[in-house]
C-alpha cells in the first residue's frame, strides 16, 4: 500500500469496497442474513461488549450495509457513517441520540415537510421542543438557542424557496454555544458540496434521492465529521457510563469514534430502523455513478432553468443559480459546480385561469415528466402541491405556508434535455392555450369543478 489521495470519482467506485478475504468478489456481495454465527463463547462476549469489531445481527451492522456506509463517509470526508431504512430514520436516530425530554432543537423553518412534522409533532410529543427559524440569518438562529438546545439543524438548499443556508455562519453560532451543526445535504449530495468543509458536524442524507439516484430504493445515512467535542459538558449521554455496555463512556472510550458508535450500538439497537442488505446494494450501484449523474443533472437543470426563465407562461423560477436570486453569491461559494436539479417555479395565471388551475392542467398534460412525490430520480419528476398534497388548503393558507398556488416543484432528470423542454412546452401550451411566443393558439375555459374549497375543513397538508 502506497500513500496517495484518491479522487472523488475513484472513491465513489472503490471506497468501502475492498474485495472480501474469502472469495475476492469484485462486486460488494449481498450478505442477505439476519445474524452471524459466533466463533465461540468468548467471541460472542467480546462482540457484545464492543471489545472487538464484527457482526452480530443485521439490525446493528451488516457487511453490505458497511460498504455503503464507508463509501458515503469517504465521499463526505467524514469519520464514518450509520445507514438507516430511510432519510427520516436517519434524522430520528440522530435526534434520539442527542435529545431527551426537556431538550430543544433550533431548526430552519424551510425544511422538508416530513422533517418539520417529525420535529413539530412526534418529537414535541416526546418532550423535545423545536424552534423553527425563518430565513437564513445566523443571528436569528443564535437568538433561538436556549440552555436546553442540543443541535442546530438546516438543509443546505431550501425547497421551494431555493434559499441557500449560510453554513459557515450557522457553524459559528452553533459552536459558540457548544452545539453541533446538522445539515441535511440530500439535494446537493457530497459531489456538489461537502458541508464538513464549511463547519458542519453531522451530515444527513436521504440516499433514496440522488445518491441512490434511480428512484427504486429507500435509504438514509448519518455521517459525522469526527471533529465535534462531545465532552464539552452539554452531552451527558456521551460522557456518562453506559450500563448495557459494561459502563463504557462513548466519548471516553471511543473518542472521535464515540458518537457514531453510540448511534449504532444504542439507537439502531433500540429503535431498529436499519437499512437492509439488498437495499444497501441497490443504493451502492447508484453511488458508483454519482459524479457522472450529478454533472448531467446539473447541466439539464440549467437548460430547463434558462428555458423557463425566458418563457412568458412562467411567473418565477426559484433557483439560486440565477443571477437575480438573493442567494446567488452564496450558492457560488458553497455550490460552485451547481445547485442541483430540484427547484420550484410558478406558472402564470391567464385571463381565464388562476395559477392554481393552470398548475393542475399543466401537470395533467405532461407526457414525459412523472407526477409523483419524490425527487432525485434519474427521470424528471414534477409535483403541483396546490392541486395534490396541499389541495385541501385555501390560497391564503398556501401563501402562509410558503407554497404558492401556482408553484410547481421539478426534479430534472437525465433524459435528453430537448425532450424535457418539449414536454414542458406542450404541457404549458395545453394548459394555457398560449405558446412560447406568447400567442393564443387555442381557447381554454375554466372548469366549474375547480372552484376553490372553503377553509372550514382545511387541515395541515403534507409537503412531500
Amino acid at each position, binding site marked *: *500500500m*502506497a*500513500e496517495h489521495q*484518491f479522487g472523488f470519482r*475513484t*472513491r465513489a467506485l*472503490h*471506497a*468501502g469496497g*475492498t*474485495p*472480501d*478475504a474469502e472469495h*475476492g468478489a469484485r462486486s460488494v456481495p449481498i450478505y442477505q442474513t439476519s445474524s452471524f454465527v459466533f466463533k465461540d463463547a*468468548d*467471541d460472542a462476549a*467480546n462482540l457484545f*461488549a*464492543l*471489545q*472487538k*469489531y*464484527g*457482526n452480530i445481527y443485521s439490525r446493528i*451492522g451488516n*457487511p453490505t*450495509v*458497511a*460498504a455503503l*456506509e*464507508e463509501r458515503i*463517509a*469517504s465521499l463526505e470526508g*467524514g*469519520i*464514518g*457513517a*450509520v*445507514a438507516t431504512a430511510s432519510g427520516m430514520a436517519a434524522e430520528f436516530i440522530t435526534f434520539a441520540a442527542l435529545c431527551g425530554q426537556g431538550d430543544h432543537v433550533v431548526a430552519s423553518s424551510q425544511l422538508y415537510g416530513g422533517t418539520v412534522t417529525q420535529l413539530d409533532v412526534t418529537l414535541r410529543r416526546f418532550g423535545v421542543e423545536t424552534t423553527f427559524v425563518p430565513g437564513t440569518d445566523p443571528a436569528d438562529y443564535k437568538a433561538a438557542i436556549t440552555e436546553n438546545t442540543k443541535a442546530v439543524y438546516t438543509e443546505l438548499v431550501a425547497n421551494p424557496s431555493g434559499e441557500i443556508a449560510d453554513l459557515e455562519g450557522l457553524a459559528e453560532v452553533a459552536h459558540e454555544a457548544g452545539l453541533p451543526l446538522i445539515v441535511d445535504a440530500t439535494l446537493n449530495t457530497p459531489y456538489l458540496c461537502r458541508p464538513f468543509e464549511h463547519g458542519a458536524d453531522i451530515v444527513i442524507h436521504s440516499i433514496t434521492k440522488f445518491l441512490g439516484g434511480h428512484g427504486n430504493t429507500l435509504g438514509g445515512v448519518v455521517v459525522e465529521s469526527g471533529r465535534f467535542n462531545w465532552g464539552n459538558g452539554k452531552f451527558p449521554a456521551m460522557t456518562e*457510563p453506559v450500563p448495557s455496555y*459494561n*459502563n*463504557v*463512556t462513548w466519548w*471516553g*472510550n471511543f*473518542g472521535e*469514534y464515540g458518537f*457514531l*458508535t453510540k448511534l*449504532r450500538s444504542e439507537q439502531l439497537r433500540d429503535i431498529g430502523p436499519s437499512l437492509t442488505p439488498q437495499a444497501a446494494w441497490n443504493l451502492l450501484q447508484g453511488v458508483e455513478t454519482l459524479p457522472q449523474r450529478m454533472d448531467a443533472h446539473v447541466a439539464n437543470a440549467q437548460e430547463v432553468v434558462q428555458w423557463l426563465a425566458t418563457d412568458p407562461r412562467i411567473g418565477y423560477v426559484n433557483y439560486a443559480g440565477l443571477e437575480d436570486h438573493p442567494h446567488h453569491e452564496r450558492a457560488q461559494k458553497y455550490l460552485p459546480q451547481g445547485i442541483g436539479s430540484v427547484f420550484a417555479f410558478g406558472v402564470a395565471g391567464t385571463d381565464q385561469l388562476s395559477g392554481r388551475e393552470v398548475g393542475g392542467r399543466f401537470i395533467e398534460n405532461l407526457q414525459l415528466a412523472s407526477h409523483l412525490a419524490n425527487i432525485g430520480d434519474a427521470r424528471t419528476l414534477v409535483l403541483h402541491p396546490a392541486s395534490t398534497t396541499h389541495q385541501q388548503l385555501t390560497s391564503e393558507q398556501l401563501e402562509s405556508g410558503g407554497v404558492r398556488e401556482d408553484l410547481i416543484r421539478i426534479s430534472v432528470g437525465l433524459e435528453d434535455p430537448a425532450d424535457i423542454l418539449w414536454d414542458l412546452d406542450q404541457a404549458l401550451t395545453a394548459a394555457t392555450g398560449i405558446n412560447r411566443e406568447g400567442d393564443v393558439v387555442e381557447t381554454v375555459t375554466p372548469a366549474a369543478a375547480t372552484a376553490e374549497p372553503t377553509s372550514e375543513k382545511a387541515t395541515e397538508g403534507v409537503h412531500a
Partner: protein
Amino acid sequence: MSTERTWVGPSAPERLNILRNTESIAIVGMSNKPARASYFVATYLLSSSPYRVYFVNPVLDEVLGQKVYPSLADLPEVPDMVDAFRKDSDLPGVAQEAVDLGAKTVWMQLGSWSEEAAAIAENAGLNAVMDRCVKIEHARFHGGLHLAGFNTGVISAKRQVVA
C-alpha cells in the same frame, strides 16, 4: 496537550508497515477494568490479531487469564512493540526502557503526546507513534473498522487481509 504540536507521525502506509513488521506487543499500563482503553485494546489484540500480547503493570498479577509482568525487563522476550497507556509525563521513561530493551516501536495511545518520548525513540532508531490506538489502526487495515461503518481511508483492489 497544551503545548503546540510539532512532531509529525507516520503516514497510514507507514503505520501499516509497522503493524506488519510486529509479532509481539507489550501493553504497558495494563488495567483489569473492562471499560479502560488498555483492556479494550488487549481484548481486541488477543481476539483479532496474530500478535503475541504481554501485559505490564507492577500492581497486577493476572488479567484476561494472562500473567501480568512487573516491568518490560521481566518479559520472556523482547517485544517488537511497546504500547504505552501512561500519562504523558511518564512517556519519556517508557520510551527509554523500550530503547534499552531493544524494541522496534514505541506506540503511545490515543490522547497521549510527548515529543520528548518520540525523540528518544526515533533518535535510537525506533519507530514512534503517538495519539493513535493500536486497536483502531490494526482494525483500519484488517476490516474491523470498515465493518463498523468507519472511513478507513483504504482504497485497494486486493483481497482484504483479516489479521
